[in-house]
């Protein structure tokens, strides 16, 4: 490995941080697209210098930007996300039917093998795909149309499709998650979908065990073991060992099991990370102490990681797309805060330091290990 590139999306622009393999000093470029919200950026595993960015604005709508030189220069590609057919309605906050309306792209997931193919998760929740590098997008409408779509309801942040996991072994299998509908899986490349929420329990909905309606905040998977999924739900950290067919809670000794992010160590499939947040009413760490919690047993037994993180008067949040890991020999872990810091650990979470601070609120963090 020759270096690491961290892609940071913020409320007011994009930033690209680079370092050599030691990950001790960092160069910061940006803001790219100053003043625009950058919900997510992600590079193509097949061509790491190709990076896609979701750029949006309440005034001017959605843009997709593409870089072919590792984030040095960018060009807008297409910005048209049209639902397939008559989009119909989903439930509004008051339970009334509400027309499906495109608002923004929350998450971009490039294909593992083709730099021109990318999936996009959008609000109002739907999945789109491009096969021409972002020049045109088409909805995979089997997801919205599988039967329960009319009953989906937005979470507080909107009805967003925020997680897309591509199975490295089975290219036809994909997992997605929607707030507040739940998790879904396709086994046929996106044609048909099934909800995979058995075992989830959400006290805040009329039927706590409902097939759909759960506020899933994030899913994570280790690429070597795609049948094992981890979930940070609104409340509860969950685990599935059967590709989502069933879930069990692994919150264990976490001080609070509310949170947004969850991720898996690059080389240890049973080592997972979360950032506990006090509650859904108070979106900041407990007692003003910013802590990453790590489990080396795939859940239930957790340890607080605090070295280098503020342990007093810290009241930031860590949003659902704002944690990532690199694949260097000693796994690096990164997360960004709504206070504008990006913290990194080059030793799998044992020690942390801010690699940049005072950015606009961080919406997303992705990492690329460069050869």
């Amino acid at each position, binding site marked *: 490995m020759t270096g690491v590139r961290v892609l940071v999306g913020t409320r007011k622009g994009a930033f690209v941080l680079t370092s050599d393999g030691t990950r001790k000093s960092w160069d910061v470029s940006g803001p790219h*697209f*100053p003043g625009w919200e950058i919900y997510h950026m992600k590079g193509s595993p097949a061509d790491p210098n190709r990076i896609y960015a979701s750029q949006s*604005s309440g*005034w*001017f*709508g*959605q*843009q997709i930007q593409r870089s072919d030189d590792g984030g040095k220069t960018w060009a807008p590609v297409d*910005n*048209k996300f049209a639902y397939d057919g008559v989009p119909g309605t989903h439930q509004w906050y008051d339970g009334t039917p509400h027309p499906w309306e495109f608002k923004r792209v929350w998450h971009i997931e490039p294909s593992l093998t083709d730099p021109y193919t990318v999936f996009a998760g959008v609000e109002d929740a739907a999945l789109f795909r491009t096969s021409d590098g972002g020049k045109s997008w088409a909805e995979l409408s089997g997801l919205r149309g599988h039967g329960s779509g009319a009953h989906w309801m937005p979470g507080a942040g909107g009805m967003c499709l925020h997680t897309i996991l591509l199975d490295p072994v089975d290219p036809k299998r994909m997992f997605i998650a929607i707030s507040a509908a739940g998790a879904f899986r396709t086994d046929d490349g996106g044609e048909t979908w099934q909800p995979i929420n058995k075992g989830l329990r959400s006290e805040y909905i009329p039927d706590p065990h409902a097939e759909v309606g759960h506020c899933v905040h994030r899913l994570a998977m280790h690429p070597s073991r795609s049948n094992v999924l981890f979930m940070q739900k609104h409340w509860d950290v969950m685990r599935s060992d059967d590709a989502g067919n069933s879930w069990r809670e692994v919150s264990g000794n976490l001080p609070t099991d509310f949170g947004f992010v969850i991720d898996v160590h690059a080389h240890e499939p049973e080592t997972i990370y979360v950032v506990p947040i006090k509650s859904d009413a108070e979106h900041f760490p407990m007692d003003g102490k910013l802590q990453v919690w790590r489990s080396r047993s795939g859940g239930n037994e957790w340890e607080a990681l605090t070295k280098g993180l503020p342990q007093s008067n810290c009241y930031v949040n860590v949003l659902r797309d704002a944690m990532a890991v690199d694949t260097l020999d000693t796994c690096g872990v990164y997360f960004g805060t709504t206070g504008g810091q990006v913290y990194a650990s080059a030793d799998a979470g044992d020690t942390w330091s801010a690699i940049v601070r005072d950015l606009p609120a961080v919406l997303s963090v992705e990492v690329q290990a460069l050869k």
Partner: protein
Amino acid sequence: MIRVVLPSHLRMHANVNGEILLDVDGEATQRSLLDALETRYPVLRGTIRDHGTQKRRPFLRFFACQRDLSHEPADAPLPDEVRSGSKPFLIVGAIAGG
């Protein structure tokens, strides 16, 4: 030639500086002006008008000659001063948000 002033974010997005001078085919209306603008700068499609409905995005306003033209019909003629180029057509982002 019709003079068009974009908000700063769209100038940056379309990579233009200052006013845009547009030739508009036929009668100059909001619709024909925006059609001409989007033809010259395709990256502006969807940023001023919704892709599907072609309606003005909610947080944008159209001003000219010290008048708010935002609610004028899309096919109504633009003011004479705009058509003659003596006054610009202003596309303005609403003062909202943080």
